[in-house]
């Protein structure tokens, strides 16, 4: 084992540097609350308390090399429930950073490399010109086929627009029609928005790969792109880690950003409250049940319960109060689904599904037919575990449901709806 090129880190030392006084590993009571509530506990015998104890017992060699660090999604639930507020995810990040690139899960590394391969900062490597083309192409098609949207716009590189809108690459790359509901919403509320040909993409696996420098560079490109267009608000669409990587990096690396960061969920809620998005639940005559998944990256790790409340307000407005069933636990205490932290890209399918089993149970316990979530990783993971464990539920984006409720959801924009909604309101 000694020939592996993974450097040995001194975790105790790191913990004393990275963690605040009073919440260092030294304060741990070994009570196990963290492990009890960590969805990864048990995966290859790991759990967060073991991580701390091994660090304290000087097992730097083992911790430096253990694949555990790729199974912890850095969701920070352990910290949330720890009476001493001990942050283990920080150390996991440090351990990830320490792995030589060749040994890191190649899927995550490749996503990071692709992100840096074009000025799009797209983890799927979609170049700016292709993005521009796809947007134009889809827009033209909608204008043509859906007459009520014949004047719809999808501005590109519009200087001084209020919103700089980002976009997960999955849509332009493989399901372009999924962008349309979002545009419709912007159109309807009369938002002053723009895409950018540069730095438009949402994903950032560089952070998950533990490559701090790459993470910084990618965010720099995005920040520059926003600054260049002079937008007031960088609007994060339905992608959890996108927000966290940007927000965290700006603080962490002390970047100059003359704009605000906002999440689309906040605006959905605002527009509904202001009457600009006149949604209602009248369409849900069948009383279909819905639940929501709180993405760790925007709830526990960032905004806190405020945005979780907005998500619930939006959901209830869309599906009817009585048709909303909360998952347990929720909001800041929510369980990570197992799609985060790059797990989906890490190639460890079995482990990821075991991790996701707890989320699956939580979804099953609600009895909901649909799960709403403003995060692409949550979305993919919940679909996958649903298929794997036989869930029979569907995972949908908010934009889909908003347009459905408003009666403006096109035929091709329903990829994620179940058969009972496939034709509703067409």
């Amino acid at each position: 084992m000694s020939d592996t090129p993974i450097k040995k880190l001194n975790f105790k030392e790191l913990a004393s540097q990275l963690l605040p006084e009073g919440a260092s590993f030294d304060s741990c009571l070994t009570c196990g609350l963290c492990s009890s509530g960590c969805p990864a506990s048990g995966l290859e015998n790991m759990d967060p308390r073991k991580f701390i104890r091994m660090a304290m017992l000087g097992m730097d060699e083992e911790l430096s090399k253990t694949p555990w660090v790729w199974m912890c999604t850095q969701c920070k639930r352990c910290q949330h429930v720890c009476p001493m507020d001990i942050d283990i995810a920080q150390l996991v990040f440090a351990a990830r950073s320490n792995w030589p690139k060749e040994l890191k899960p190649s899927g995550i590394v490749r996503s990071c490399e692709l992100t840096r391969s074009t000025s799009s900062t797209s983890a799927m490597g979609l170049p700016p010109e292709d993005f521009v083309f796809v947007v134009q192409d889809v827009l033209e098609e909608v204008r043509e086929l859906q007459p009520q949207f014949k004047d719809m716009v999808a501005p590109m590189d519009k200087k001084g627009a209020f919103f700089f809108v980002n976009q997960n690459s999955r849509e332009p790359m493989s399901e372009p029609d999924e962008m349309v509901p979002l545009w419709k919403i912007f159109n309807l509320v009369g938002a002053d928005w723009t895409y950018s040909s540069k730095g438009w993409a949402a994903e950032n696996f560089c952070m998950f790969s533990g490559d701090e420098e790459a993470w910084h560079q990618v965010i720099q490109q995005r920040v520059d792109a926003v600054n260049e267009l002079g937008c007031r608000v960088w609007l994060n669409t339905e992608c959890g880690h996108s927000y966290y990587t940007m927000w965290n990096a700006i603080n962490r690396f002390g970047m100059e950003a003359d704009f605000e960061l906002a999440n689309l969920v906040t605006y959905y809620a605002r527009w509904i409250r202001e009457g600009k998005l006149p949604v209602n639940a009248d369409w849900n005559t069948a009383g279909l049940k819905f639940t929501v998944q709180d993405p760790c990256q925007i709830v526990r790790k960032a905004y806190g319960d405020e945005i979780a409340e907005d998500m619930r307000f939006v959901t209830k407005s869309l599906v009817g109060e009585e048709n909303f069933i909360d998952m347990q636990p929720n909001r800041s205490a929510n369980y990570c689904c197992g799609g985060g932290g790059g797990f989906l890209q890490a190639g460890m399918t079995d482990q990821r599904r075991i991790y996701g089993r707890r989320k699956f149970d939580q979804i099953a316990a609600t009895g909901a037919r649909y799960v709403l979530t403003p995060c692409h990783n949550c979305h993919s993971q919940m679909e996958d575990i649903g298929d794997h464990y036989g869930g029979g539920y569907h995972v949908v984006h908010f934009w889909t449901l908003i347009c459905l409720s408003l009666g403006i959801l096109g035929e091709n924009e329903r990829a994620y709806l179940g058969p009972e909604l496939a034709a509703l309101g067409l």
Partner: protein
Amino acid sequence: MKQNTRHIDTDLTIIGSGLAGVAASSFALRRNIRTAQAGNTGALAYTTGYFDLLGSLTGGSGASISDPWEGIRRLRESEPLHPLARIAEDDIRASFEEFITFLAECGITYGKPGDRNLDALTPGGTLKKTLSVPATMQAGVDAFARKAQCIIIDFKGLKGFSSRQIVANLKTDWPQLRHERISFPEIDQAEIYPEVLARALEVPANRAKLAEVVKGLATDAEAIGMPAVFGIHAPDRVMADLQDRIGRPIFEIPTMPPSVPGIRLRELFEQVFPQKGLTLIPQQKVVSTDLQANTIQLDLKDNYGPIHISSRAVILATGRFISGGLEAHMERITEPLFGLPVTQPASRDLWYRHQYMDNLGHDVHRAGIEVDEQFRPLDRDGKVVHHGLFGAGILLAHQDWIRGRCGAGIAVATAYKAVQAALSVLQPAAA
């Protein structure tokens, strides 16, 4: 990027989310007080879920007592400064009643507190005097009282809970008790946590599988005990369903930490209280304070950034050493947040007696802050520190919550008094 401090303006702020903080919050919400709350719920998650009022008389033989009300009457003589001795019996009863009613509305039912202590089961195979137990544990108390034909089941891989141990320790008193060990259906990890099982049992399909296994074992038992794993957020429902499927009464026995009953209370608080109107800043501690003429200013921080609270009244319910309400230094004990004077033994050598299990208990637990009749903390001269600042919970001096088995009693009753007193400051007319 601008990162703005968020401001919260409120009437009452409760610092601390232990049992005292949670109870205070429930009382405030029922009185429609505009309330904010901050604090890590850590220690709350360690409890068994049993609500003790007074389980033994401290300072003497340490023997357990069966009538807690009589015990409190005796406390008034022997320890007049004990927080429970300073609260009228009617108020204590009312506080429990109100708190338990509130919890039931939120999803966890407790047995109605009576005149006598119950003998509740522990994972060690001992008995514990307590006033009220969650409905999911009631059948165990009853079964013990009747010494009914019973079976205790444990799960392979659940460390620290051995049904053999429970039976071995109780068999002289309870000959009709048997034990069994089973594998929890579909969980094939070697080390399992009660919390994981409890979450699994929220799913009906998993309950069905467990019921199938249990049914086969317990053909002649009048009741079946298991480690506390009957769900997290809807234990009553989970138990009822499981019981239906098994076809006989079942009950839970608390496990050692990290145990489910504590996690239940934590989650109930975190998830349900905000829906009832509480402004909650979950799991964050207040870091600095400033007493002003008409308000108290508090500062804290969450993951998103700084938060500033301006509040007309504050209840300090920050607990003791585990929770950080008190800090023990090499030389002395301090209260870190407001710098309140702490009544304490003269030197560290007097904190603990020489024998761990000494029936007199350890004086360090009696250290704490002093309060007046309105539960307002007092300064060194015995004067009220601030008219809007109140103290509640085990942070208060002159009690040994551990040996007295009175943790929940002090938390709930003092929270009740503190909220009442706060109300009279906030709404002089109403109160």
